[in-house]
């Protein structure tokens, strides 16, 4: 039976932990709920919209639950007529708690569908500006950004003008990574032999942290980059300065970048797009690793012929 002290202890602890949690929540910066770009804003609005529905459901269920558990707990002065052991169902109630969830799900699906199609197009707020195309390539544990129009390439940081739509063409050389800048908007996967498009935009200047959020091995935690939004003029003279005195990107340096390690920030005044397009050729990085002796044992040399159907475990041939 519920001794009084126990219910007070539980009530107090849960109240206390709720206070601690809300305090922590206010102190730590919930960047997804405080987006700095239109794409993140669409997603934030959708999230807040869904939170209202969900809170409503929670409140209804919690109220019902606490009322029932306290009112019908077995105790000495439990009056008999409250206890109906054979009450086993009511179609009226069943209909209610089937229809209402259907309504809620439809109410959530419509804005979700609208947002999905909207996210595939450049942000409306800067519809007049032509989006800058930047290729973002994930290589084991670094990000390479190529500016095809300005023939510039940077590693682990990307400079863009503020309040300007950017079209990221995300791919990867060797792994399935996820291109994600939490404060600006949702993520998209980058995979070898494929290219995914993602529109992002920073409304005001600032440095936003981007990272790979899909696990790709030991270096994944440090596969981070700086997304820097600059004022228009600063961006223009950064372009001019880089074109003038940043070193050319030759094949040798680029091949070094293909090896799996974490590197610092780099800048080049030419891009790798001239000699390799990872969204078409998914084997480039692996061949480079074999060339440099970073032998990836996981891959078998081509299995030689197999007369019998291949299921017998008699296939030898490796290395």
């Amino acid at each position: 039976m519920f001794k009084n002290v126990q219910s007070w202890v539980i009530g107090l602890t849960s109240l206390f932990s709720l206070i601690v949690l809300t305090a922590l929540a206010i102190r730590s910066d919930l960047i997804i709920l405080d987006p700095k770009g239109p794409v993140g804003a669409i997603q934030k609005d959708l999230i807040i919209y869904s939170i209202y529905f969900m809170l409503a459901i929670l409140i209804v269920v919690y109220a019902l639950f606490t009322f029932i558990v306290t009112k019908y707990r077995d105790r000495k002065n439990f009056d008999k007529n409250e206890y109906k052991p054979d009450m086993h169902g009511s179609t009226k109630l069943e209909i209610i708690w089937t229809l209402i969830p259907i309504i809620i799900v439809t109410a959530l699906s419509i804005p979700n569908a609208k947002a999905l199609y909207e996210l595939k197009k450049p942000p409306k707020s800067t519809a007049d500006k032509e989006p800058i195309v930047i290729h973002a390539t994930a290589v084991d544990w670094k990000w390479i950004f190529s500016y095809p129009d300005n023939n510039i390439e940077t590693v682990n940081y990307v400079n863009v003008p503020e309040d300007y739509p950017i079209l990221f063409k995300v791919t990867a050389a060797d792994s399935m990574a996820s291109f994600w800048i939490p404060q600006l908007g949702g993520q998209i996967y980058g995979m070898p032999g494929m290219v995914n498009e993602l529109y992002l935009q920073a409304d005001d200047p600032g440095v936003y942290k981007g990272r790979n959020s899909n696990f790709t091995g030991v270096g994944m935690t440090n596969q981070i980059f700086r997304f820097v939004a600059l004022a228009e003029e600063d961006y223009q003279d950064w372009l001019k300065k880089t074109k003038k005195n940043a070193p050319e990107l030759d094949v040798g340096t680029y091949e070094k970048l293909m090896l799996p390690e974490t590197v610092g920030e780099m800048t080049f005044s030419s891009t790798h797009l001239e000699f390799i397009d990872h969204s078409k050729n998914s084997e480039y990085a692996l061949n480079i690793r074999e060339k440099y002796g970073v032998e990836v044992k996981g891959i078998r040399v081509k299995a030689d012929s197999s007369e019998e159907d291949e299921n017998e475990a008699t296939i030898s041939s490796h290395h």
Partner: protein
Amino acid sequence: MAQINTTNNPDTPLEYQSETGRLNIFGFWIFLGAEVALFATLFAAYFALKDGTAGGPLPIDVFDLNNTIIMTLILLISSFTSGLAIHEMRRNNVKSMIVWLVITLIFGLAFLYMEIEEFIHLVNEGANLGTNAYWSSFYLLTGTHGLHVTFGICWIVLIITQVLRRGLTPETAKKVFVSSLYWHFLDFVWIFVFTGVYLLGMVG
């Protein structure tokens, strides 16, 4: 849980007379449902990797549809003769049942022989397991089916020996019936392999 109660009406077929018989036959149908899911996944991998043909011969150049049609007919005939064997079993003439089962085995072996022949031909054309994604999934799909046929043949041989040794009892009848279900199922799968792989492969 094998209560042998032959209380049910006399002309229930032998294989349904024992409790284990009824349980095993029903359980085998559930197992066939699982096999459908297994082959469906192999088909999904095959159709998803249909265009991964870089660096290897195209199916349209190396497939021999007539050969495959003959293989399909052989498997259909073996399924037919297996059906006849069950028909004979239900009329209790054990000898003709075994004759039909042996014919089924012969056709099964012929099918296997032609399939291995075809694999050797394909390998000589340079399409082996590791050539590319298409041929990997081709070998896995047809190979798994081929492996099932091999397993089926050994199983039926085993059951024929048991019937010869212990005669036709509810116990052995159940085994013959379940192995024939398995054999028909192989043909059931081969229909889709023939249609999805060989026929659509030739259409290109």
